[in-house]
C-alpha cells in the first residue's frame, strides 16, 4: 500500500489471432498482461490502469479489442489510430514518453503481423528504460521498485528487482486472463487519437507465407529412474551441441552431416 504516489500503468494490447481458425481475438500474452496489471491495481489504493492499442480498428477487429476492457469493466481504452502496415514503435514511443507511466506491460510476442517479439526491446531502447522479458508475476511494487518473477525454462523462476519506469513483457507462465464480459466490453469507449502513420517499409518488402510446423527430433527417453523420466518429460528441446559450418567445402560439409546421421542412429 503506497500512499505516496499514484502508480500509473499502461498495458499495450494488440489484436490476436486464434491459432486454429485465424479469427480475431484478444492476444493471449497481452491479456495475461492485463490480468497482471489488474492484480496490481487491486493491491494498490491509487493505481491507475490504461489500455493502449496502436493500429487500426476495423469492424472486424473491434469486438476482439473490446474484450480487453471487458475483462474488468474498464470504461475506455486508448486507441492510437494507425494505418494498416504502419510501424507502431514510433507512435507508441512518443505516446509513452509524453504519458510517462511507471510500468508498461505487454505480451512477449504478437499473434499476428511480424510477431518478432522485438517491440518491448525497441520501445525500451527508445525510452531508455529497463526491460524485463518473460514476466510471470508481479510480487509487489514499493517506493518505485517492482519485485517481479521472471519465467525461465522448466518452470524455474528468477526474482528480479527493477526500478520503475520499466517495460515488462508477459510470458505464458503468467496467470491465465480472466473472462471478458460482453456487456462492459460493448459499452467501453475508444479514446481514439488519429496519429500520422509511419509505414514499415522493411516489412512491406518481405514476403509473408503461412507458417509450417517445423519437423521435430524424436525424443528417445532412455531413463532408468522416475526422476530421469520426469526431467526428460519436463525438458525443453535443447540445443548446445550444434556446430556452425561456415566456409567449408562441400565434401567437408557432407562428412559432417554423415557423421551426425551416424551419431543419431539414422544411418546404420
Amino acid at each position: 500500500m503506497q500512499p505516496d504516489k499514484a502508480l500509473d500503468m499502461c498495458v499495450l494490447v494488440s489484436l490476436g489471432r486464434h491459432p486454429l481458425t485465424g479469427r480475431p481475438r484478444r492476444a493471449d500474452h497481452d491479456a495475461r498482461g492485463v490480468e497482471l496489471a489488474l492484480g496490481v491495481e487491486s493491491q494498490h489504493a491509487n493505481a491507475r490502469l490504461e489500455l493502449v492499442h496502436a493500429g487500426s480498428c476495423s469492424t472486424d477487429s473491434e469486438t476482439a479489442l473490446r474484450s480487453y476492457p471487458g475483462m474488468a469493466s474498464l470504461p475506455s481504452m486508448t486507441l492510437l489510430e494507425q494505418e494498416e502496415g504502419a510501424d507502431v514503435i514510433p507512435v507508441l514511443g512518443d505516446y509513452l514518453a509524453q504519458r510517462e507511466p511507471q510500468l508498461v506491460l505487454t505480451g512477449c510476442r504478437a499473434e499476428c503481423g511480424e510477431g518478432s517479439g522485438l517491440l518491448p526491446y525497441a520501445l525500451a531502447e527508445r525510452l531508455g528504460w529497463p526491460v524485463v522479458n518473460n514476466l510471470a508475476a508481479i510480487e509487489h511494487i514499493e517506493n518505485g521498485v517492482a519485485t517481479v518473477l521472471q519465467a525461465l525454462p522448466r518452470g524455474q523462476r528468477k526474482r528480479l528487482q527493477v526500478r520503475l519506469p520499466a517495460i515488462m513483457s508477459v510470458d505464458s507462465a503468467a496467470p491465465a486472463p480472466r473472462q471478458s464480459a460482453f456487456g462492459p466490453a460493448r459499452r467501453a469507449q475508444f479514446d481514439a487519437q488519429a496519429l500520422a502513420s509511419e509505414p514499415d517499409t522493411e516489412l512491406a518488402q518481405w514476403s509473408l507465407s503461412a507458417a509450417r510446423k517445423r519437423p521435430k527430433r524424436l525424443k528417445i527417453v532412455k531413463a532408468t529412474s522416475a526422476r530421469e523420466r520426469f526431467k526428460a518429460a519436463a525438458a525443453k528441446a535443447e540445443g548446445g551441441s550444434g556446430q556452425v559450418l561456415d566456409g567449408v567445402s562441400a565434401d567437408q560439409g557432407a562428412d559432417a552431416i554423415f557423421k551426425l546421421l551416424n551419431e543419431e542412429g539414422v544411418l546404420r
Partner: protein
Amino acid sequence: MLETLLPIVILASLALAGLGAWRRISLWRQGRAAPVALFKGLMALPRRYLVDLHHIVERDRYISHTHVATAGGFVAAAVLTLVVHGLGLAGGVLGWLLLLASAVMFAGSILVAKRRINPPARLSKGPWMRLPKSLMAFSAGVFLVTLPTVGVLPPDAGYWLLGLVLLAVVSGGLAEMFFGMTWGGPMKHAFAGALHLAFHRRPERFSTPAGAGRSTGLKALNLDDDKAPLGVEKPTDFTWNQRLGFDACVQCGRCEAVCPAFAAGQPLNPKKLIQDMVVGMVGGSDAGYTGSPYPGKAVGEHHGDPHGPIVAREGQALLDAETLWSCTTCRACVEECPMMIEHVDAIVDMRRHLTLERGQTPNKGAEVLENLIATDNPGGFDPDSRLHWAADLNLPNIADLGQVDVLLWLGDGVFDMRNQRTLRAFVKVLRAAGVDFAVLGNAERDSGDVARRLGDEATFQALAKRNIATLNQYQFLRIVTCDPHSFHVLNNEYGELGGNYHVNHHSTFIAELYREGRLAFKPWKGGSVTYHDPCYLGRYNGEYDAPRDVLKALGIEVREMQRSGYRSRCCGGGGGAPITDIPGKQRIPDMRMQDVGDTGADLVAVGCPQCTAMLEGVVDATAEVRDIAELVADALVTSPARVQAEEVTA
C-alpha cells in the same frame, strides 16, 4: 348483535385485503415491463386453473381431493358469506348453500390438517402449520353463524357470550383468508396464483380447447439496445409477471423432491430459490423461511435488498452464485410445479447477468465460451475437422446437392469418439431405409445450446444467426438429429431469431421409418432393457412415445424406471452443469445409474450424447449404455420392401 358486528368484520377484512392487494400489486409492478394480454389472460384464467393447474395437482390424488374440497368450498363460502352476512341477503336457498359450502370446506381442511401430521420433508412448516387451523376456524365459524340465519337456531340474544366467541373464531378465519391473502400469509398463493395464471409469461404453455400447449424455449434477450442491462442483477430486474409468479409459490416442495441437484447435495433447492426471490422483492433476511435449506447452506445468513444485487460481487447477498450454477436446466421443477412457476427462466436470467455483465462463469465456463466464439464448438477443435470421423462413410454434403429430404444435424458429438459410434450407427440406419439425406459438414456450428444455458446470450445469438443463414441456403423437408439439445434449440429457440424448421429427434424418425415399413429388425436376443428419457427430448419436447415405440419394434419390453417419462431424473449433463461443475455430496449420473440398477436391467437405452457421456462415466455401473440408434443398427435386416424395390430395379 352478530347481525350488526358480522357485516362490519367482513367488510373491514375485505377493505384490508383490498389495501394489501394494492400494495402487493405495486410491489410486483416495480419489476420491468412485460407484454401481457391482460384481458385475454383474465378470460383464460378459469380454464387454466380448472384444466392445466388441476391436471398437475391431480398427480397427487390426496392433495387434489383436499384442494378441490377446500378451495372450492372456500370460494363458494366466501362469495356466499359476502351475500348472506355482508349484505344480509339470507333469503331462500342462499343460507343453505352457504352451510353446504362451509361444510365441504371444513371436510377439506380436515384433510389439510391430516397432511400436516408428520408432514413430508418437502413441505414448509412455520405459518403453513397454522393454515389448517385457520381453514377450520373460517369454515366452522361461518357454518355456525349461518345456523341462526337460516332459522335452525333461534337468533336469541341470550347467546351473546357464545356469539362473541364465534365472532372471534370467524374473525380469525377471515384474517387468514382475506387479510393474509394479500399481506403475505400462506393464502397469498391463491391471490397471486390466480393472477399469475392469468398473466403468465408463457401463455403458450397452457392448453386450449384446440389441444395441449407447450412452451419451453428460453426467451431471447434484446441485444440491440446497448444501454439495456443484460440479464437480472437486482430483484427489480425481473419482469413484473415473473415477480408475481414468485409470489404464487405455495411451498409444496414438489420441485425440491424432483430436483437432481438438491438430491445430489449441491447447493440448490428450487423452492428456496423462489422464496429467496420473494424475500428479495421486499428485502430482508431469509430467516423466515421454514422449508429445507440449500444443501450445505444455513438459513438466515443471506440478506436481500429490493434494489441491491442478488448475487454479491464479494461476500454474501441474497444468493450464492453456485446455487445458480448447480441447475442442470432439466425442467423437472417446472414440470412438477402446481403453480406453474418458471424456475429455469429465472435461473438463466440471473446467469445471464453473471456471464454477460460480470464475466463470472465458473470453472471451465469461460474456456468453453471462448472456444465457442473462436472455433464454433465447445471443445476448441478445428472446425474443419468436423467430418473426420466419417472419412470412410462418404456422407453426402448438402452444399453439393442443394436439396434433400432430410438434413442430418450432427451436433458437437462429432468430436467425441463415443458419440461417433452413435452417429455411424444412425447413418447405417438411414442408408438401410434408403433415406435421401445430407449433412452440412464443416459448415455446421454448435447450436448454441450450452452458450445460452451458461447465460451467454450474445454467443448463442451469434451462433444461431450464422446457423440460420447457412440453413436458409438449402432446401430440405426436415432436420433430423441425434442430439436432443440441438433438437430443442433448432425446434423451439431459433424461431424467435427467424429460423423455423421441422425438426425430428432420430428416435421419432426411426419410429416413422419403421411404421412405413422401411426398416425391419431381427428379434431381440439381449437381456432386459430400461429407457432413460433425456430431459430435452421428454420434458422439453414431449417426446416420450417414439423411443419406446422403437424399442418395442426391436422386440424389447422396456422395464421402466420408477422415475421415467415426465418425471425422468436428469443425467446431470444439461445446462452446462458438467462445465460449471459445482460440487455436491454425490454425482447426479451416479444416482441415475442407481435408478437403472434398481430395475435390474442389463442395458439402458438412451437418445442423447450428453446422457450417454454422463451415464457411461459412472464407475461400476450394472448396465451397459447404448443409444437407440446403435440398438437399431445392430438389429437391422434388409427390409422386405427394400428387397422388392431392389429386385424391381435390378
